């Protein structure tokens, strides 16, 4: 009986203490708290404050009164979006519940590229055909020159489509890989595909992540490497086509290919989206994305807002022809 009494006392004491200690005040979802959380998380994690010379304190001071004065969620989202747009970063956005992502339109996104994939396949690719999947298209531009068009690196697990394309193209000795207007996606996928074109592991650049609350708190330079992937690798001359809309993971692909001595980048400078994004959420369930790391070229220069210059610069025009592809074809026929 005493034992039962003891157990009961202990259990009750435990439960009482738990109840007092664990049930705190309700999580605050008022606009001030939401704004402060968003501001703080960006302050803790965003990677380009110093590089872009952004006074985040000042921006917070400007937008907080507007956020508090917002009369609806939509209005609050607009204020939050405008605050984030001050970062002028294509990787930064906020998505309220129900969708409707608010994001910054970078300058490169407003520049026309005059690229038309349909025209490429109609005019230049003799045996244009979709791959086994739906993510890439490929064909032969000449008997010895293959062409693979990769419009996006979104998703995961479809790098095998490139293997299928390489196998279907057979014994071509030159390859043109087109990532024009490719806005990026999953960088691991981009590097997995780049691995189809390298015979050994190569370092193609560096990345540093925010590692502390100071705006200049970063990890050291971490190697970014590309390694052979897939059942076979194409190691003949490769011409990678890029333009101002080749962004983010697409730029990872371009940098990885640049590290290969048999690859030549042809076209226009890339977009210059060198931040690695992370996703976070607010207490009300809205999500937002921000750059948390900085990517660098092999000479440890960042290309944010600058882009990656090609080996062979060719500017596209509004004319019906495709001067970038034609230049690559000319290079491949040498």
């Amino acid at each position, binding site marked *: 009986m005493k034992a039962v009494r003891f157990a009961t006392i202990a259990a009750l004491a*435990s439960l009482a203490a738990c109840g007092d200690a664990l049930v705190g005040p309700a999580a605050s979802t008022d606009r001030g708290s939401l704004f402060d959380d968003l501001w*703080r998380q960006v302050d*803790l994690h965003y990677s380009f404050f110093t590089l872009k010379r952004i006074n985040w304190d000042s921006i917070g001071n400007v937008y907080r009164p507007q956020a508090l004065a917002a009369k609806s969620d939509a209005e609050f989202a607009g204020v939050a979006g405008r605050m984030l747009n001050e970062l002028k970063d294509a990787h930064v956005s906020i998505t309220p519940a129900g969708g409707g992502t608010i994001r910054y339109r970078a300058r490169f996104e407003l520049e026309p590229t005059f690229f038309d994939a349909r025209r490429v396949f109609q005019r230049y690719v003799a045996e244009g055909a979709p791959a086994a999947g739906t993510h890439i298209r490929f064909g032969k531009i000449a008997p010895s020159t293959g062409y693979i068009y990769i419009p996006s690196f979104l998703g995961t697990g479809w790098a095998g489509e490139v293997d299928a394309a390489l196998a279907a193209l057979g014994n071509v000795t030159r390859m043109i890989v087109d990532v024009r207007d490719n806005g990026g996606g999953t960088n691991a996928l981009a590097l997995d595909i780049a691995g189809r074109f390298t015979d050994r592991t190569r370092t193609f650049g560096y990345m540093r*992540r925010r590692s*502390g609350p100071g705006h200049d708190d970063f990890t050291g330079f971490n190697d970014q490497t590309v390694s052979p992937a897939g059942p076979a690798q194409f190691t003949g001359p490769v011409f990678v086509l890029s333009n101002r809309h080749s962004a983010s993971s697409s730029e990872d692909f371009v940098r990885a290919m640049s590290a290969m001595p048999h690859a030549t980048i042809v076209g226009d400078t890339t977009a210059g989206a060198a931040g690695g994004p992370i996703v976070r959420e607010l207490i009300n369930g*809205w999500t937002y994305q921000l750059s948390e790391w900085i990517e660098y070229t092999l000479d440890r220069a960042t290309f944010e807002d600058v882009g990656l210059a090609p080996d062979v610069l060719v500017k596209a025009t509004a004319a019906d022809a495709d001067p970038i592809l034609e230049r690559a074809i000319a290079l491949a026929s040498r």
Partner: protein
Amino acid sequence: MYPNVLSDLPTWGRPPPFAVPPTYMKRPNAPLVACLLVAVARAASAQSDATFAPVPPHQLTIFAGATQSARLEATASPRTFGGPGISAALDYRGTMGSLWTVGASVGAGYRRLSPLDGPKSGTQQLFDGDVRASLMRRLSARSGFSVGLASTTNYTYTEHRYPEPTGRVSHFVFGATALGPAVAYSRSVGRGAVGVELSSPMIGMVSHPYSDNRTGDGLSRIRVATAADLRGVNGTLRYAPPMKGDWGMVYAYRFNLLDYKDLQPVRSASHSLSIGITRRLGGER
């Protein structure tokens, strides 16, 4: 189970330039430890004629149970997540002489959590493991009251799925090894035995990367944590009915509280009910 548990976020990082009223988290362990220690001490003092519960030289128990937990991993989200899970553990206890008791256990668990705050979108899946060891000494050969040291190493891998339409999945890790004081009390109840154990970290090492887990990013860091930043309580209430031969059952209620004070804190509270099958490996029957 724990509405709004640990939900009042502290001001972290540098203070914002605009006025924000600070909020403070209630420290869960201080009142809990006090309450439980008082309860245990009173029970121990009141039971001067308590029936001493002998511990076999070696005893091995396999536990399986259900867990309910609430968790805030501020690196992933400002929201507290909670929900059910399952756990299993292999537990060893043994005696060294008439006063000393050693214990060791290896456990693993899986939890699927949903938000306790705000909208119900987004989920967390937790995979965790722990290794515990304790060395206890009875106050006297006939006392059921023991004091000693306990070490706990735990590792939690969190797969956090952000709400739709983003739906992005990120992974976070938290690992801690800590050493601290432990108290235990056991006594016979009929032909069975009941026991209470409490331990709390005093010093340890914590691995809590600044952001989500990515290979080769150089973000991993290990820091020494004292009781000022790593607070917690591990407790167990167990009852073992009379054994049949060398075999028996054990029923255990466990709770764990953790509050890791960081720029992006980790706080968790969990409790579980487990049933174990135990095998006596020596001693009197």
